[in-house]
């Protein structure tokens, strides 16, 4: 191998660390671009149905808990701040601070998922699901709605007298809600794994002010996850 005369942090096919750093960061930006387009299909679905049924979306949005959504927004913003600070810290060689900051980022991400879990389970118990789901209260035919939901669901009284067509379309809103937040949630989980991996590498001493591409790229990914939520929160929770 020709890597004998190379720095061990430098992959054999690059000329120098700067080229390697540039390539890695550039590749990460390209990857983020594909992530945005990955979500775009769902945003298009959202835009289509909202422009066709603005009244449905306005009605359905009241079933989402704006307070929990706002708390989650704050939690993610904080985690993005600590991720950005971690990049600064690794540039300054503050190894322990990097570990702490990445740890806070992971905690925030877990907090986000915990709140998300509360929201999901609440919706499941109330039957606030897409039209075809077992427990949904938005089935076109009220007789099809499960009796347990009819008896115990707090929202059943609100929707049972709605026009059947309107109620069915409300189910589509929740279909889009679960797809968008679910896909975002998967990205948060992947982010948690990524941050834990970065913490481990940091504690092992893989990073230095000269070589910190992985932290930088990981933070970029995390900012995108945050940014998508910044769009999801008003689009889903704050319709009026």
């Amino acid at each position, binding site marked *: 191998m020709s890597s004998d005369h190379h720095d061990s942090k430098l992959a054999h096919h690059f000329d120098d660390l700067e080229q390697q750093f540039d390539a890695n960061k550039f590749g990460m930006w390209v990857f983020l671009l594909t992530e945005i*387009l990955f*979500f775009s299909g769902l945003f298009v679905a959202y835009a289509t149905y909202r422009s066709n049924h603005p009244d449905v979306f306005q009605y359905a949005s009241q079933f989402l808990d704006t307070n929990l959504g706002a708390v989650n927004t704050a939690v993610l913003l904080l985690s993005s701040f600590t991720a950005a600070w971690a990049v600064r810290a690794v540039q300054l060689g503050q190894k322990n601070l990097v570990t702490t900051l990445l740890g806070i980022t992971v905690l925030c991400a877990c907090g986000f998922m915990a709140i998300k879990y509360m929201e999901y389970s609440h919706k499941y118990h109330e039957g606030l699901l897409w039209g075809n789901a077992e427990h949904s209260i938005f089935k076109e035919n009220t007789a099809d709605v499960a009796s347990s939901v009819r008896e115990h669901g707090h929202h059943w009284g609100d929707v049972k007298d709605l026009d059947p067509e309107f109620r069915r379309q409300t189910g589509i809103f929740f279909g889009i809600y679960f797809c968008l937040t679910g896909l975002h949630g998967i990205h948060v989980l992947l982010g948690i794994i990524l941050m834990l991996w970065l913490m481990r590498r940091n504690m092992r001493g893989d990073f230095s002010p000269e070589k910190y591409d992985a932290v930088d790229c990981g933070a970029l990914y995390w900012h995108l996850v945050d940014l998508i939520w910044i769009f999801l929160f008003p689009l889903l929770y704050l319709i009026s």
Partner: protein
Amino acid sequence: MNTHASSVNYLNHETGFKSWFMTLDHKRLGLMYMWSTFAAMLLGGSFALLLRFELFSPGKDLVSKDVYNHLFTLHGAVMIFLVIIPSIPAALGNFVLPLMLGAKDVAFPKINRLSYHLYLIGAVLLVLAILTGGLDTGWTFYTPYSTSTDTSVVIAVFGAFVIGFSSIFTGLNFIATIHKMRPPGMTWFKMPLLCWALYATSVIQILATPVLGIALLLIAAERIMGVGIFDPALGGDPVLFQHLFWFYSHPAVYVMILPAMGVLSELFSTYSRKHIFGYSFIAYSSIAIAIVSFIVWGHHLYVSGQSALVSIIFSALTYTVAIPSAIKVFNWVATMYKGSISFTTGMVSAMSVIWLFGIGGLTGLWMANLSTDMHLHDTYFVVSHFHFVMVGSALFSYLGGVHHWWPKMFGVMYDEAKGRFWTIVSFLGFNLTFLPQFLMGTRGMPRRYFDYHPQYEYLNKISTIGAAMIGLAVFMIFWNLWRSLKTGKKASPNPWGAATLEWQCASPPTPHNFDEAPAVGDPYDMSLIQFKSDEEGYLPINPCEHDPLICKVESTEA
């Protein structure tokens, strides 16, 4: 490869299954992609032959109508997802791109390996779908049929999803490689045109493929959970799926043809021994095609109930694709003009493509036109048109490229006379197969049916005979290549006299490609490369012959 037992190269420096399967070497990954596409081509080709033999005469001959539906779906899915999309970008591109840039590897070798493994996983899933209930939706997975049929749609869409990510990662890798790993002196406009074409292809791959990914995921969500976004019974919209699908799949057509155009630019210039004509026009037209490809998808939805205004806009935009495509063809023809043409297998393939792409491209205009498309939509005219582009142009270019870079890949020369002969046979067979299908289409024979009226019988018979010819010829082409590995003459580093950098390293290259950084110059200036009969190949003119003083200085330093 008996001729090379003595020298160390990327083929023999490590051996064993793991040294190939877990390799990070772009050349080995390129070869594995190539063998995989060949295997998939034989599978998809067998499906095609079964379809054609069923259609040899009206009524049921060979397979039932349900099996027919499975066969045409799998023929399409295998040929598109497993053969054409990875063919030139992943197989030839992986092998050639870093060499053309004088680099040691692509920017992210591990991601490169990951994308090959994803490709294999996707292929396994597609085969699994065949074994566990098959697939009869057509390769387009149109809703609501795909969400209601009881075949293995979930496994198949998951396979296509995984292959999509393989394609995204290849594109990402190539973009980063072209941006960050060009050698000093190689500016954008000193890159070989294949690099431009691969760059344009990669842009489409990274921007369009994720949209297919989400559309396929939503089909799976629809089938597993009944989310309802595409289901009219739940208030959803099946046409939204068509929009999302074609937002990927129309650009994907250019993922197939753009790299083929890049290969053609190399072939025409090299085998005409002449500088490529209109370099910057060809380069810009690749980018133009990539951009326009994103705003024409609506021409697949003329009869799906989209508004007339939108159809008119999409129709006008679709016409504009003809401009950059024609620019390329005219420049290739101008490159041949007064060139010193050698009829190698690569050149014969390239010249076939001018004919095939001419027909395929021009018939595309008929379908861009709203009034004629109403008649031609979903007939054999469409089938013939896209086979002329995707097979006649993309796969012929792929095989031409494989012959062109074969000596570099394996260090051996294939049998030129046989390669040329079978390429011509496949060209004739291709025309025999698909020209009658234009007639069937204009006379109203619908696609995807396993039966037809007797009036179409003689056209179908001609078409089937042509298909058998293609099958034989492609088999013989592969056989000829395979045989050359055992009996082929040793290839010199530059058997064709091309000026791009990959011909400056050994054939086959060493594991690290270049022993010393190659000299970057104009990739199409062949005046300083001359044939040396004792080498049986081309060499750069030795500067010593012009200025003996240089050699004296060097020898005293040594």
